[in-house]
């Protein structure tokens, strides 16, 4: 089906089911329970999961396949966002032209930066991309303020021209982003007992695009192009002496992953029409690197998992304050309660970074293949096939 088969097809189906049912899956706890704090099924966060998933999937096409570690990918995301917001300002609030433009502009930007940076490999390449991104960030923050609105970020305003739309909505506000009239921010709520599930148009647009992106990424991984990219990672000398110039391949991968980043940026702006310069800072580029490695570089689903993991901590753990903790542990005796709260406080709220840092270390130390490796191990446990057993099986066969 769709030109993919076997495991890949299963994977795509699983991702599709997960993405479409996310509003249920991410909201497992009833509204009034203490655990509701851990629910992540509200539109903004679900959108972020998916958008950063797209970003990471694209990054993985470059890094996972070719091994070229770009440390400036956030620049493409930022450029995508700016293009989209400009599109909203000038043209119309329809997200389609905005998204298309952001993909194109990010692709062109990636073409230029990639063309230059790919003259070097290894760490030298990483630093070149980092330098380009940091330049973009610094300029966007200051000199380019007329285009980027600097520190505040590019926003819509009441006096935008918006050729194919209205500057001001009927209610006197700024019109909202939409897909041919279907408003992105519109959310319908389904209440089932103590649960309430939110279905947002914006999220479903993002989810569909994630599925498309993911599907394309599968196709790339399984295509001769993907094979060539893996060959680039493995041995460039051999590739050269096989008559292949590696540059067009790496550049194509770079541009494709830049376009993914642009798409992510465009979607971010479509969900929330603001583009800030911080989106291009090295920390943002670093974040996608971390997402990819954390999930499992070179695997198909890993980057999406990594993106979800980091965004979850950033948005859910950071919001747990001592007030919430006291509610949770209110059942404990006073002294114990305070002790538990005091201890837990370090890891949540303003301490969310600490938890994230610790988890980075734990995951990479104990799960060398990232979260995907963790999943594989769990799968193996469930199937009851231990490593030992496999070893025994191998023993009976001769070494070859």
């Amino acid at each position: 089906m769709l030109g993919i088969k076997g495991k890949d097809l299963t994977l795509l189906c699983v991702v599709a089911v997960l993405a479409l049912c996310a509003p249920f899956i991410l909201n497992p706890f009833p509204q009034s329970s203490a655990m509701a704090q851990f629910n992540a099924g509200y539109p903004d966060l679900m959108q972020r999961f998916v958008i950063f998933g797209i970003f990471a999937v694209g990054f993985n096409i470059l890094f996972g396949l070719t091994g070229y570690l770009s440390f400036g990918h956030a620049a493409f995301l930022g450029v995508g966002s700016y293009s989209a917001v400009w599109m909203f300002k000038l043209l119309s609030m329809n997200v389609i032209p905005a998204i298309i433009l952001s993909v194109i502009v990010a692709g062109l930007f990636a073409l230029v930066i990639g063309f230059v940076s790919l003259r070097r490999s290894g760490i030298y390449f990483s630093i070149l991309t980092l330098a380009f991104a940091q330049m973009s960030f610094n300029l966007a923050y200051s000199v380019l303020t007329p285009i980027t609105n600097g520190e505040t970020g590019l926003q819509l305003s009441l006096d935008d021209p918006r050729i194919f739309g209205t500057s001001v909505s009927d209610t006197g506000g700024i019109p909202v982003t939409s897909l041919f009239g279907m408003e992105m921010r519109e959310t319908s709520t389904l209440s089932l007992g103590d649960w309430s599930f939110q279905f947002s148009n914006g999220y479903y647009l993002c989810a569909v695009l994630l599925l498309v992106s993911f599907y394309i990424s599968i196709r790339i991984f399984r295509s001769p192009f993907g094979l060539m990219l893996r060959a680039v990672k493995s041995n460039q000398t051999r590739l050269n002496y096989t008559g292949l110039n590696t540059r067009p391949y790496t550049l194509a991968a770079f541009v494709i992953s830049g376009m993914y980043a642009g798409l992510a940026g465009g979607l971010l702006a479509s969900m929330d029409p603001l583009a800030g310069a911080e989106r291009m800072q090295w920390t943002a580029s670093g974040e996608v690197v971390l997402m990819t490695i954390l999930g499992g570089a070179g695997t198909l689903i890993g980057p999406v998992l990594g993106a979800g993991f980091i965004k979850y901590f950033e948005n859910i753990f950071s919001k747990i304050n001592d007030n919430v903790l006291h509610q949770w542990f209110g059942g404990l005796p006073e002294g114990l309660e305070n002790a538990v709260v005091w201890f837990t406080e370090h890891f949540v709220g303003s301490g969310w970074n600490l938890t994230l840092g610790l988890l980075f270390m734990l995951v990479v130390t104990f799960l060398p293949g990232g979260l995907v490796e963790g999943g594989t191990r769990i799968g193996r446990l469930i199937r009851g096939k231990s490593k030992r057993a496999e070893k025994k099986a191998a023993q009976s066969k001769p070494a070859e």
Partner: protein
Amino acid sequence: MNVKPDFNKGKNYAETAPAFLSVWNMESYYGESYIVQNISFNVHEGEILALLGRNGAGKTTTLRSIARMNSPQVTAGEIWLDHQPLHKMASYEASRAGIGLVPEDRAIIPGLTVEENLQLAQIAPPIGWSLERLYDLFPRLGERRKQEGVTLSGGEQQMLAIARALARDIKVLLLDEPYEGLAPVIVDEIEKTLRIIKEQGITTILVEQNAVRALELADRAVILDTGTIVFDGAAAEVLGNEELRSEYLAI
């Protein structure tokens, strides 16, 4: 034909064994693949042992296991060198205990000159031949001492690898295909050197594809096939045994 090596499987095997180097029930893995499958053999002091077998038989794996390299992982068995338990040592400790390995890919260290490659061998005790003496043995190395080691020609690198092993005071020399890539004249030279080394009482294990050459030089031979020992006996015996020659050595 399958000849069992002569050793007794006692707990205090190491003390009673007449051997200088003994490998006992050794099993080695690369990750999940089981390569060296429970082998045992002895090497006596001062002798040259030829370790033969087809490609992929596990010769290199055996040598690397004895030298205590990080891979393969030796999961079972014991290795004793002159009453020292090698199987409990890290590779640098094995080296200090007297193991010298000339690896099959020569492993010349990039970024270092020829001389630095040799100096590196003389940092940790015990120190063997002096640089002058090594340059006498391999004059080509003397001429190229300031050149980066990895830019040497294939044969020169082989010389450097052997010289580097001799730069340490070793008890057992493990040679993994030392003749590979060497001009015939040089092979003759090295063979002479090996005889000199033998006279000095150094024990040698020689892995070589040129089986005839190796067997002419060696005292004893061990033949490996898919990770198990299929022959252990006098070198001359192999040369005289048609079946062994054709089955495992194709000569």
